């Protein structure tokens, strides 16, 4: 360039700055213009930065900034318009992106240099006139003249989209050029993303949506949810990577949303419910990983988890409903609970391993369990039976630790139970049996279970249960004392009796005082105990409760005569009728007591083990009456309920009932020999038979007569119908090797006129024979109804008590709040139906505990 001239001008400029005329300005501009053009041609090596800067400075200083600015615009525009665009257009079908990229880079480079030269204009003119600075001006011109020029713009977009598509199809593409192009678009937006968005992102997203829409159809057609979700995961990953690698970062979120929308959201229901591969299929086949995948995919979209949860829930409910479905003749409680526990375990497994312990799903599983567990009204009973099974002695081969684990799981089910009061009732019954029949596997386990219940429901729930344990241990003490006293006094009690004194109210005792006729020996033994007990605790009342007692009986069976050949047919004639006499011997330990052996017949050594529960005779009387129920003994335990006010007992609630477990030996009986026993090879066989108190009463009848009809037994013993039937069934219709009695005719059912006699040909490998009660799994229908009625009755009281408690605190309250509070107060025991509460409110109004307030009939007030 003409440096010399420039020097000249400079000199003059300095000398005469103010007189600079148009011509001179023009010449400076020409100079700069040339320089700019040289820069654009990349011939910048010969240019003097200092000189150019000065010229530009001069122009701006002399208020010719505008000329310079618009001149610049023209020059740049011209350059891009005439030169660069032509190049780019020429390359449309060949190396387009590279060419564009070159042009872009060149432009950037030249614009940087130009900016440097014109820096003073940027600082002054641009600033004052609030126009785009030099560099940005360059960008704008490039944008308008090149990138957004008609077919270039379209072509650029098509090219980029085309490349992405090709890559999606698996081809390898030039990621760098895409990246450059995107960067360029971003830079061209100057301070915003608009250029990028308008020229690329938007079309990109809509094209992607279209693409994935098609793809989802294709995937769905393959009809496998697990494959589908895996592809989805892959696609999302791909798109995210793409955005990260060569698009703008901010696009990642957007494109992922598009994929989620198209691939997941629009089809989630379809995928989840896909037959033979959807969520149900996965659950059924334990596809933990697929489910995890499904979870993470669905978790991405709104409502996704809800859709998943709904499907899981639906399936879970189906499964649960099937499990709790009552079967003909009742379900096996153990299997029932076991299956629910397994179901629970499997869903827990899914929850942890597939669903990331998701709160929503966890909640849903709980709700579902609660839903179907309560569908079956027998659930509380089954649950208690299950626990009973685990806590009962037996050959389970489980360690205490293992039992604890099972119980913990059971508690989870317990939590879902709505009718906890019903459970409590059954639990009490079962616990009573375990305690009285000494069937508990360990006291520790029992206590752990109680403490679990306590944690769950509070001590009010368990106080009675704990009272039962207390009764048992107090009874032990009393019996030891009693025995010592007996020994000391040298009483010749033939029956060894063990009595448990049960506090009435704690135990599930029946209120009907049984008048069962206890045979003399055990009865005497009991009376001795009664005197002893009442002596210690005057004012109490003992009532015998025979349902739960037991006895050991010495029995002698005279057997058949072998010679007689026709054993089976001639039984009756060859039989020696032996009767069993119950004697109490020291409980199980005592074998047959030698003494009474003299009398023919069966000497029974009756040890009773636990016996019965006591029914309180008088429901708790006011002033501290304690009722003790004693179950008796010999043979069977009967329970006695004692009432009275023991001086020491102050609280009204302390009602003691006594369960006696008598054991005793003694006596007994006449054996009547029917057939001649002479010559029999098999001599008389002695056994101890363990029976219930009722059975003892029955069997001992046969000491007095060979044959009794059912009717006669009934009237003789006064045993309640249901219990008698059950006792007879196990004596005469139980397992063949346990049939102590024979029934004529030999039918399954027992009719009043059917008769019974002793089975003299009874044999057993065991010396001690336990007569198993006819297995009654769970309650029979009438019993269940009875329990139900009792529960309903109890609930009435509980609801009323709750209402009164609330009213005492609140004084006045609206109907709806009262109902809500009562429900809340009772929910740990059962869920009261609003109607039930309403009826109780009505009843309380009627009895004038509550009144409607005169101002508002919906508000109640407490009438103190």
């Amino acid at each position, binding site marked *: 360039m003409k440096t010399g001239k420039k020097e000249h001008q400079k000199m003059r400029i300095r000398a005469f700055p103010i007189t600079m005329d148009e011509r001179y300005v023009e010449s400076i501009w020409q100079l700069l213009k040339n320089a700019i053009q040289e820069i654009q041609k990349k011939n910048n090596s010969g240019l003097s930065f200092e000189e150019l800067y000065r010229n530009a400075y001069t122009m701006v200083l002399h208020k010719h900034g505008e000329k310079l600015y618009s001149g610049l615009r023209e020059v740049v525009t011209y350059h891009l318009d005439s030169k660069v665009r032509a190049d780019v257009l020429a390359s449309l079908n060949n190396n387009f992106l590279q060419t564009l990229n070159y042009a872009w880079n060149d432009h950037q480079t030249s614009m940087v240099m130009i900016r440097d030269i014109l820096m003073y204009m940027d600082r002054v003119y641009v600033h004052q006139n609030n126009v785009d600075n030099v560099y940005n001006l360059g960008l704008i011109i490039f944008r308008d003249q090149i990138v957004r020029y008609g077919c270039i713009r379209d072509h650029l977009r098509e090219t980029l989209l085309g490349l992405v598509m090709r890559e999606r199809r698996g081809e390898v593409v030039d990621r760098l050029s895409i990246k450059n192009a995107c960067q360029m678009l971003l830079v061209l937006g100057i301070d915003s993303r608009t250029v990028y968005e308008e020229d690329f992102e938007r079309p990109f997203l809509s094209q992607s949506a279209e693409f994935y829409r098609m793809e989802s159809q294709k995937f769905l057609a393959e009809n496998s949810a697990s494959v589908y979700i895996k592809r989805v995961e892959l696609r999302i990953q791909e798109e995210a990577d793409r955005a990260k690698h060569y698009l703008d970062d901010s696009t990642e979120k957007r494109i992922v949303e598009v994929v989620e929308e198209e691939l997941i959201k629009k089809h989630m229901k379809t995928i989840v419910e896909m037959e033979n591969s959807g969520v149900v299929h996965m659950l059924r086949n334990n596809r933990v990983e697929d489910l995890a995948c499904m979870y993470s995919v669905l978790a991405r979209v709104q409502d996704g988890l809800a859709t998943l949860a709904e499907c899981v829930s639906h399936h879970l409910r189906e499964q649960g409903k099937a499990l709790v479905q009552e079967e003909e003749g009742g379900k096996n409680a153990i299997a029932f609970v076991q299956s629910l526990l397994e179901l629970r375990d499997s869903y827990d497994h899914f929850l942890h391993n597939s669903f990331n312990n998701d709160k929503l799903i966890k909640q849903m599983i709980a709700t579902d369990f609660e839903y179907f567990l309560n569908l079956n009204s027998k659930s509380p009973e089954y649950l208690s039976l299950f626990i009973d099974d685990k806590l009962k002695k037996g050959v389970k081969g489980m360690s205490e630790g293992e039992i604890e684990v099972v119980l913990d799981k059971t508690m989870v089910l317990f939590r879902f139970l709505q009718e906890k009061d019903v459970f409590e009732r059954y639990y009490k019954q079962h616990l009573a049996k375990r305690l009285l029949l000494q069937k508990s596997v360990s006291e520790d386990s029992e206590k752990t279970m109680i403490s679990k219940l306590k944690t769950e429901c509070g001590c009010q729930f368990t106080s009675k249960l704990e009272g039962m344990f207390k009764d048992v241990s107090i009874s032990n003490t009393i019996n030891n004392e009693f025995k010592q006293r007996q020994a000391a006094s040298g009483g010749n009690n033939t029956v060894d009796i063990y009595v448990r004194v049960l506090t009435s109210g704690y135990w599930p005792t029946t209120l009907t005082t049984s008048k069962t006729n206890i045979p003399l020996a055990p009865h005497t033994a009991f009376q001795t105990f009664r005197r002893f007990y009442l002596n210690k605790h005057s004012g109490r009342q003992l009532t015998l409760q025979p349902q739960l007692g037991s006895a050991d009986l010495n029995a002698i069976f005279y057997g058949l005569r072998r010679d007689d050949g026709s054993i089976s047919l001639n039984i009756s004639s060859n039989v020696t009728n032996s009767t069993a006499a119950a004697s109490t011997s020291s409980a199980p330990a005592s074998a047959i007591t030698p003494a009474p052996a003299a009398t023919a017949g069966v000497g029974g050594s009756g040890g009773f083990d636990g016996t019965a529960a006591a029914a309180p005779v008088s429901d708790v009387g006011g002033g501290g009456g304690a009722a003790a129920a004693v179950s008796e003994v010999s043979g069977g335990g009967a329970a006695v309920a004692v009432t009275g006010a023991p001086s020491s007992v102050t609280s009204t609630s302390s009602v003691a009932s006594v369960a006696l477990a008598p054991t005793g030996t003694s006596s007994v009986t006449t054996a009547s020999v029917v057939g001649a026993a002479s010559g029999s090879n098999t001599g008389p066989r002695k056994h101890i038979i363990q029976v219930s108190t009722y059975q003892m009463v029955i069997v001992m009848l046969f000491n007095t007569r060979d044959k009794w009809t059912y009717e006669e037994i009934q009237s003789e013993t006064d045993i309640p119908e249901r219990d008698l039937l059950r006792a007879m069934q196990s004596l005469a219709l139980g397992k063949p090797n346990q049939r102590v009695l024979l029934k004529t005719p030999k039918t399954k059912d027992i009719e009043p006129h059917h008769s019974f006699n002793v089975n003299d040909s009874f044999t057993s490998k065991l010396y001690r024979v336990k007569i198993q009660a006819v297995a009654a799994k769970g309650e029979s229908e009438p019993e269940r109804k009875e329990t139900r009625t009792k529960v309903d009755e109890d609930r009435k009281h509980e609801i009323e008590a709750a209402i009164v408690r609330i009213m005492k605190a609140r004084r006045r309250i*609206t*109907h*709806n709040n009262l*109902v809500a509070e009562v429900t809340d107060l009772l929910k740990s025991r059962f869920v009261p139906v*609003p*109607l039930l509460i*309403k*009826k109780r409110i*009505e009843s309380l*109004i*009627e009895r004038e505990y509550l009144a*409607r307030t005169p101002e508002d*009939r*919906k508000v*109640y007030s407490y009438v103190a």
Partner: protein
Amino acid sequence: MGVTGSGGGASGGNTNSSEKRSFYARIPPLTRSASHETRRHLSKEYYSETKIHTLFDIYREPHVPDEGLETEDVMLTEGIQRFCADLDLNADDFRVLLFAWKCEAETMCRFTRLEFLQGCKAIKADSIKTILSKLPELQMEAQEFDKFKNMYKWAFKFGLDSEVGQRILPSDMAILLWKLVFEQRKPKILDQWLLFLGNHPSIRGIPRDTWNMFLNFSETIGDDLSTYDDTEAWPSLFDDFVEYENDQLNQNISKDPKQ
């Protein structure tokens, strides 16, 4: 009217209307002297307490000299029947109920002297004729809602058989009483309600609260049961009623599959 089924027993009431005419000859001197004082009220509605006593005595339960027992100073079924006959009204006429209300009678088929006296004084009448002439006024009075409400609430107690210590109105009695009480302002829902009660003999009876609430119920609900909300503080019998009605309705529209 429910006035049947007198003290004799809850169920075994006479189904016929009764009149009262048994005269009890005894006139307590005390009350008589009291009656003189009332003369001082020189309202134009003048009445004589003595006359009222005399009137009462006409219908009073006769003294039976044989039984040494002192008979109560009351008018019972037979007397009331005669009284009604003299008024030329049926014992189950609404107006008789109104009169009993004015007497604040404790229980049906039985007016004590005091009650009778109070009733007559309240309406300022001392003879059959004057009583009759006041009845239209009474009917007017019972049109006022507050008065009506008062009468309605009183009617419950009136219906109970106090001799057996009833606290709950037996259904059949309640039905009669409802019909009667609402003679002048019959709620739209009444017929359905009474039909419902009639069809459900197992309902053990109507407690006071239910009786009182029925008035609110009939006014709140009109005849549109769809506005009924069973979570509100209504007695549960209304729940049953509304449910029953809705079931009936549904059956009519589409043969309920359950049936």
